[in-house]
């Protein structure tokens, strides 16, 4: 039974992708409902699979000598992410029914969403490094196809290609690490590495550890690779919610979490992970404070929260990571989908043009506010519990500088959450905008996610129990709801965190009062808005490559004489080199 359910979570979406594609342009109005059915079935399979999680591989197929075995292993970590991917995938598809109504080429849209969902579940279920990479690349392909969905718009195409190239370059790190481990152990199986990391030569393990860190940083848009995610916001908003908030960007975090037991003892690795997490969290939070586009604020927010998760992995706090993965997926999807409802309604993403929209769309405002409160870490909502777990782990296990910076980060998070909520829904309207009411499908998804933001933390007992039972190499403690509540409320760190959060909110109130950033801080806006110079590096690299390519064209002279000269020179060089070398 687990084997069938496991396979279903991959094959049902993929079958759906083929079916939806085959519908063609004539029947594209059926694509959405079909996609809902397939993603819904996948979500159902994932939820049924969860109680049946096991540490053993349920599928084990030999695929050829150089390719090892295709193994699928539905353990606690995998099943959690499978459930997130399929359920939130289904909600995003339902939301899309309204959001994408009237758009063209919908079969392409829904087919790629389904392809993505299947690939994401395959990624986390895979017990073989080759097939992890295989599914990783397919998620990159789907992400690219969906970001550049509106491919008549050059900005969308550029955003898609940027995302593709940057995540692929990072993927080379995963490739290199996987092959190094294969060369050392003779197998692609992940559990082999986790069970006996000491058996692998130190140099190889370190190479793999840092290679995976590069790959994870690129995929999860961590520093220094964070520049692709804001540009990926050209994607239709349900895609931003699903791929760039709740699932694909989690793949990097998943990779690090999965391999933590093997790499924990590699000298310098944990520190590097913590540094990456902290730097990302703070820099992205700063960028969210000054961003002027609604989706960009949320994009930076995602990057920042992923930084929190990466930081937690560096601390070894497996429970906190899994918990925050769940919370973040839910409240971030909620925020993005609400933002999508707003953007769909008013037709713009520019914060400068919004304002006072709350009166005209109370339901969406309520949903967004819930999401923002969860993001800021206000008690009762799921974000509060998981963020507190991370901060406490930081206090207990991590370097002090890390803890203080992440605490400040929590304050900054509250600041930008309040800012963006205020700028969109409260205050006086800054421009005249025509409001277009949200459809039933949109409201359904938003309602489910709002309920989730209030209640998902109650699943802590179930999640930690299953993880504890099925992850033999990761130290996950079983925590009951009561223990969670007691621990967090009793911890002095919690009060500090809450005060910092209120402080962040207070800063926004003060800003609003004075409407302007004090002069001594204004110079900071430009560098923050250009991603602290990372964007300039990207542009620089692209320019250099383009320049070199253009110059190289001159060598293709088209003149036969020159071609023959090249040949003769090559011959002379070859004979000389051979004479010298051999």
């Amino acid at each position, binding site marked *: 039974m687990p084997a069938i359910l496991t396979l279903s979570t991959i094959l049902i979406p993929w079958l759906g992708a083929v079916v939806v594609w085959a519908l063609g342009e004539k029947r594209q109005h059926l694509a959405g409902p079909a996609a809902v059915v397939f993603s819904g079935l996948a979500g159902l399979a994932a939820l049924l699979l969860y109680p049946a999680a096991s540490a053993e591989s349920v599928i084990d197929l030999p695929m050829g000598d*150089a390719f090892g075995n295709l193994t699928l292993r539905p353990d606690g970590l995998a099943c959690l992410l499978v459930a997130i991917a399929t359920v939130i995938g289904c909600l995003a598809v339902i939301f899309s029914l309204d959001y994408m109504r009237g758009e063209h080429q919908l079969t392409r849209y829904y087919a790629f969403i389904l392809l993505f969902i299947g690939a994401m579940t395959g990624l986390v279920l895979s017990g073989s490094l080759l097939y992890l990479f295989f599914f990783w690349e*397919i998620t990159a392909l789907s992400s690219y196809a969906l970001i550049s969905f509106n491919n008549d718009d050059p900005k969308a195409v550029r955003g898609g290609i940027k995302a593709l190239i940057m995540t692929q370059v990072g993927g080379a790190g995963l490739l290199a690490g996987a*092959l190094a481990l294969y060369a050392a152990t003779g197998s692609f199986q992940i559990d082999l590495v986790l069970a006996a990391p000491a058996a692998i030569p130190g140099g190889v393990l370190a190479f793999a550890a840092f290679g995976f860190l590069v790959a994870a940083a690129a995929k999860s848009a961590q520093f220094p690779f964070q520049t692709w995610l804001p540009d990926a916001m050209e994607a239709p908003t349900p895609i931003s919610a699903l791929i760039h908030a709740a699932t694909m960007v989690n793949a990097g975090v998943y990779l690090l979490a999965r391999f933590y037991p093997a790499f924990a003892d590699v000298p310098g690795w944990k520190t590097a992970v913590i540094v990456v997490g902290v730097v990302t969290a703070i820099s992205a939070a700063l960028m969210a404070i000054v961003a002027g586009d609604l989706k960009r604020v949320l994009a930076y927010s995602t990057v920042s929260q992923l930084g929190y998760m990466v930081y937690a992995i560096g601390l070894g706090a497996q429970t906190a990571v899994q918990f925050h993965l769940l919370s973040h997926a839910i409240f971030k999807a909620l925020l993005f989908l609400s933002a999508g409802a707003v953007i769909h309604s008013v037709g713009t993403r520019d914060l400068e043009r919004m304002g006072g929209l709350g009166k005209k769309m109370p339901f969406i405002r309520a949903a967004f506010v819930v999401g923002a409160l969860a993001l800021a870490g206000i008690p009762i909502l799921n974000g509060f519990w998981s963020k507190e777990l991370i901060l406490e782990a930081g206090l207990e296990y991590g370097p002090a500088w890390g803890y203080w910076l992440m605490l400040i980060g929590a304050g900054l998070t509250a600041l930008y959450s309040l800012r963006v909520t205020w700028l969109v829904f409260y205050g006086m309207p800054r421009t005249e905008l025509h409001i277009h009411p949200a459809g039933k499908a949109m409201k359904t998804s938003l309602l489910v996610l709002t309920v989730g933001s209030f209640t998902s933390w109650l699943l802590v007992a179930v999640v930690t129990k299953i993880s504890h039972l099925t992850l033999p190499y990761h130290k996950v403690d079983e925590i009951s709801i009561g223990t969670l509540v007691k621990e967090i409320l009793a911890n002095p760190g919690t009060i500090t965190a809450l005060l910092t959060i209120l402080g962040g909110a207070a800063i926004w109130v003060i800003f609003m009062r004075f409407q302007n950033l004090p002069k001594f801080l204004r110079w900071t806006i430009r560098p923050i808005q250009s991603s602290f110079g990372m964007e300039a590096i990207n542009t620089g690299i692209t320019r250099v490559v383009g320049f070199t390519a253009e110059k190289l064209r001159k060598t*293709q002279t088209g003149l036969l004489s020159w071609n023959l000269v*090249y040949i003769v020179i090559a011959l002379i060089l070859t004979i000389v080199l051979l004479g010298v070398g051999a």
Partner: protein
Amino acid sequence: MPNKLFWILLILPLACAPIIYLAGRLPGIRGQHNRQTSLSRWLLMLVLAGCLYALARLYPAILSGEQTAVSLGTVSFQFDGISLVLVGSTLILGFFCTWFSGRYLAAETGEEKYYALFAILTGSIICLVTATDLFTLWLCFELMAVSTYTLVAFHRHNAAALEAGVKYLVQSALGSVFVILGIALVFGEKGTLAISALKSAGAASPGLLAAGGLFLIGFGIKAAIVPLHTWLPDAHSQAPSGMSAMLSGVVISAGLVAMLRALSTLGVPSTVWGCAFLALGAINMLAGNLLALRQVEVKRMLAYSSISHIGYLLTGLGLALNKGVLSGGEGAFFHLMTHAVMKGLAFLSAGALLYALLPHDGSRGPLKLPDIQGTARKYPLVALAFSAALLALGGLPPLAGFMSKWVIFTAGFAARDGWMTAAVIFMALNSVLSLAYYAPLVNRLYQRKMSDVVESGAAVPLSMSVPLALLALATLVIGFYPAILQPIYQLAGKNLLALFF
């Protein structure tokens, strides 16, 4: 029985070439230029099918390593794993290209010459890769080259095609001169031309090193090694699309295989060739990708990308020769086969679009990027097949290119040498770079706004779309289950090491 089948493979295409030509010039048939079917084409497809049948019957014997050899007097031919890779690719790709070319060439004069020369091309490749002595190798190499000269310049009223053909002819001829000089040097030093005998006959001398350089450059022109590649963009983009597919897919690989056979005879330590291949491979990959980035013509872009794929092949071969890594050779031959399928599919798709979108009056302008905008709305199958080919060439799963590149990557790490590892990481980064020109092309196909030529384009006939669909399916199947081709490339990898070590 194996011997009879082998003779069929060797002789059938060459012997039937004149028959194919004459059949096309029969009094009743000659002059009917707009015929939907062509007797020559059917005959050629029959010949290729016959050869495929013979190959299929021969297959178990080859895999089990039985001596599959024939000889006629002092000339003998032997079928090993490397031959299997190339003969299989040639026959299968040739069959699809011929099937495809029916309507494509229907309006041309002289199409019977095309099919006859195609038969000679196929036959010469089969003899080339099974030859066991240097002179037969060179002879068949020449025959292959001569048959392709006119095939490249087939649209002879088109100045660009003629120019491409002439450049190709002159440069290729120069290469052949180098090769025969090299063979003469070898014969002078060692007194024999048989490849297996030469291998075991003593160490290298300056004369043999010079011969090695001559072989490297001479065959390298045909194999499109940078800086000898300058004929390729013109030739592959101006040839009829069925021929472009064959040229990129099989002919340049045949040049590479001929080079391998020739270099193995010299007694030079294989690490020399291994290092040379790795260096040349790196240059090919980078130059091919950078040059392709700026291309506006579709077929020219695909031609430059062939140069970078030769770079991947050279990297795999270099790993095998330098460090004796078995998976290097395996990966290279696997990639040879998948490249034939993927590049063949890409060129055939481009050809289908050329046929449907641009005028048939023999003066077809090149297919440019703005022309293919919005293709998917009117030609969904062709667009899907083309996208599958391009993404496969970029090395994205679940398509074939990913799996073949993966095997080469494993070789780089199996060698446990920093330089080898760096070489394959460079290859991985180049694979990412290639996406920078494949991905925008795919995007254009799926744009909503159709270009003018797409709006007014004609239908793509079934005889073109079915081969495309089958090749696309093959790309997908190999990507999901690469073990299908495993026995073939593993045998070829073993044979490669046996050649040099």
